[in-house]
């Protein structure tokens, strides 16, 4: 009897601390992932950088030799000024003077990249007033964007995911899980081709020196809101219809972001993924009423899908739509 008691308490100990073990694994895994990334990036990019540095050193040497009247110090001063201006997006080359960074359509593009937190950095506010306004604009605008995206995505999900899944489940008689999985895969495939492959092909045609891989890379880096800024469309030297092009790109990025969120939400609603995620989250304590409005990062919809899940479990799944305000009041009433 003692043995069985000791055995069960051991199991209980492991079970109680299961969440702690999972968290420790998560932290370790995260750090290892970063280290792994660093090693791979370093080994892939270092040789190329080495080559570029040598090439540049030789170029500078040759230039100074060919023009002996130029002292190195004067050249350095000139270069620093040119590069400073270049950092701000102002090119001193003669054939690039046509492109303005702050005309209306470029400013619109800039505003949309700020609010989506992409932030390419190819144009940055130069003046102090611009920087201050940028902060104020974002403090109001980013929550606004989250609200906007949440509302739009919830309504789209209803028409694109819930109704079709229900329809196929009822009409064809497959189990809901099977239909959901197939639907998620089909949706993912369609989204990837419509928002990655086709735009990548279009960009590789419209932009002079982008091949298909670079265009695809641009689409991915933009739609994930990383926004490195190494590739920015519409900045080429004699870009035709630049204004229209910039507006088109703004619309594409916005729609692409919405599409990504729809796909993410669809995948998150799959039961298998929900179970996996719950491993890492802390159990909800119901003692204090927490009013979850929305999760910060646009790519994380745990609060919305959890609300949706709790509503599904407690009520019928045929809710017309899930308004974020009504669901929070429901959530707090469930907690009470």
């Amino acid at each position, binding site marked *: 009897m003692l043995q069985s008691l000791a055995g069960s308490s051991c199991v209980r100990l492991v079970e109680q601390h299961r969440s702690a073990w999972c968290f420790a694994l998560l932290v370790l895994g995260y750090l290892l992932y970063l280290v792994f990334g660093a090693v791979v990036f370093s080994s892939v990019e270092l040789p190329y950088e080495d080559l570029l540095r040598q090439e540049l050193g030789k170029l500078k040497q040759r230039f100074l030799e060919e023009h002996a009247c130029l002292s190195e110090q004067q050249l350095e001063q000139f270069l620093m000024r040119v590069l400073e201006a270049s950092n701000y997006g102002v090119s001193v080359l003669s054939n690039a003077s046509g492109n303005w960074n702050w005309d209306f359509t470029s400013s619109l593009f800039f505003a949309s990249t700020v609010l989506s937190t992409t932030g390419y950095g190819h144009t940055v506010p130069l003046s102090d007033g611009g920087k201050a306004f940028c902060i104020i604009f974002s403090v109001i605008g980013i929550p606004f964007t989250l609200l906007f995206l949440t509302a739009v995505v919830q309504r789209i999900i209803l028409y694109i995911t819930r109704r079709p899944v229900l329809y196929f489940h009822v009409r064809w008689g497959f189990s809901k899980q099977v239909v959901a999985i197939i639907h998620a895969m089909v949706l993912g495939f369609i989204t990837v081709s419509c928002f990655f492959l086709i735009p990548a092909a279009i960009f590789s045609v419209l932009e002079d020196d982008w091949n298909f891989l670079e265009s695809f890379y641009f689409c*991915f880096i933009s739609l994930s809101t990383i926004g490195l800024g190494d590739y920015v469309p519409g900045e080429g030297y004699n870009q035709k219809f630049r204004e229209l092009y910039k507006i088109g790109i703004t619309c594409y990025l916005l729609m692409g972001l919405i599409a990504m969120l729809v796909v993410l939400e669809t995948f998150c609603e799959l039961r298998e993924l929900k179970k996996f995620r719950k491993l890492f989250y802390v159990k909800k304590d119901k003692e204090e009423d927490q009013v979850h409005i929305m999760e910060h990062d646009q790519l994380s919809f745990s609060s919305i899908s959890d609300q949706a899940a709790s509503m599904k479990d407690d009520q019928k799944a045929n809710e017309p739509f899930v308004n974020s305000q009504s669901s929070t009041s429901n959530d707090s009433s469930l907690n009470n």
Partner: protein
Amino acid sequence: KAMCSGRLQTALLVAGYFVYLLVGAAVFQALERTAEKQEKMAAAQMKEAFLQNFTQLTVAEMEQFMKNLIKAIQNGVYPVGNESQFEESNWDFSNSFFFAGTVVSTIGYGTLHPKTAGGQIFCVFFALFGIPLNIVFLHRVGKMLSLLCKKLGKFLYEKGMRKKKIKFLTLLFFLATGILVFLCLPSVFFQITEGWSYSEGIYFAFITLSTIGFGDYVVGKQSDRKYFSYYRVLVAIWILFGLAWIALLFNL
């Protein structure tokens, strides 16, 4: 009836969002256009003066040289300075680690970016798995931070305060300490280590923690400054906790 008001709400929200973008664009344009004009004029004047000083240089040669230089800059190689600075690489381990962190947190400064095709493909897959991992990780760290607030709430509850007041106070406390610890104090720190003004420090802190990450201000990138060895690690820890704080702020 509920459906009607819901549709109206959505329509208003969508319209309001686009109006907000348009207004922002107009204000940015108004604020920045003159500064950009001045910058262009100054750059052109400097180029003129330089060419006048050195008449052996033809304009074409100059343009070609500058084009090559600018391309090098965009690839992250800074050609100003003496030979010893050529020894430090942009892709040594600590810089690559910092880059991996900016990709996974979606900040994406862009001062460093992969140039080779292999690097770009790897970057796509790395981010594909890394971003969800980062979200889950930040969520957990944020919950740890919120435990502090809960303790404060419990303490006040035992003192007999009403629940609503506790909630308001804990939110205020969370907001105030967060702004102090994650925005104000680091800006003072950056004044010392980077030589930025206080407002530039706040601007950098905000742009980083909101994950916008323009890359016009980046820590540890000034070639004429000496940084102590664990500077970047300290900054990374600040970014991590700051992001978790912001994520939690939207949850309170």
